[in-house]
């Protein structure tokens, strides 16, 4: 075989291959029909999926819309005073609870003196 082989020589080689292949080719036989598959059209699939989604959404919405059973508890039942609650009451609590107003001195001075008196009275009571 030489490098200057032309197209006809290539064609001849393929012809030989063709004749050998076609000699052993199986005869044409009608392909057997396969059982028809149940195929859903894409539109039907989409509709079915949409219906499922809607049904699910409705179910979830219905479930969340029903208010959960509520237990009513009176406020009285939740009010409880601890036995040591009195310890939280310290002298001068009133002073701490009130907010002094800037520029107003009269009432504040009176309140302060009253608080001092209360403290002294309480101390005396404790001693006695």
């Amino acid at each position, binding site marked *: 075989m030489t490098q200057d082989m032309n197209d006809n020589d290539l064609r001849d080689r393929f012809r030989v*291959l*063709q004749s050998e292949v076609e000699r052993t080719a199986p005869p044409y036989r009608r392909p057997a029909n396969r059982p028809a598959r149940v195929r859903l059209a894409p539109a039907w699939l989409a509709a079915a999926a949409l219906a499922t989604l809607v049904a699910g959404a409705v179910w979830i919405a219905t479930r969340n819309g029903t208010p959960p059973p509520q237990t009513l508890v009176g406020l009285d039942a939740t009010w409880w005073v601890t036995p040591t609650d009195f310890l939280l009451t310290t002298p001068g609590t009133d002073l701490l609870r009130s907010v002094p107003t800037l520029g107003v001195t009269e009432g504040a001075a009176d309140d302060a003196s009253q608080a001092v008196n209360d403290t002294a009275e309480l101390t005396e009571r404790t001693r006695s």
Partner: protein
Amino acid sequence: MHRPDLEAELERHHRAAFGWALSCCGWDRTQAEDVLQTSYLKVLEGRATFGGRSAFRTWLFGVIRRTALEQSRRRALLRLVPLGTVAGPNEPRAAGHDPVAALEHGETTRQLMAALEFLPGRQREVLHLVFYEDMSISQAAEVLGLGVGTVRTHYERGKRRLRELLGGRGEL
């Protein structure tokens, strides 16, 4: 086109289609027959519809080529072997597959088939369509779904490479 007409056309092109299926399946006869039957079913069941825009043979060869590619991919997935060893029509052949030994041929044919194995898939397909199936470059382009210029390039390169292989190697 009605079913009897389709069947008549399939029967008329059957031998040529078998050669093309063999080429698409790396000269594996069993796979080629399977691909051919699947392609015929596609045509007869209407899953592949002939639109009349090209010659029936050109269109049929396109169907066969696509079917061979699909089955090659399916086999590759099913086997779960290293994907590189399963070759499609456009890929280099697997190392363990010996298509020359699969069919009994004369010396000339054996050399040609062995040389074709060294060509890239596209070049091999183009040369087969032009020389084996007697198609023009534009018909081969239709079958392969490529541009005419691209196919011409594959044709020229394939011929040059095939000549080198057949002339330079002597015994392949």
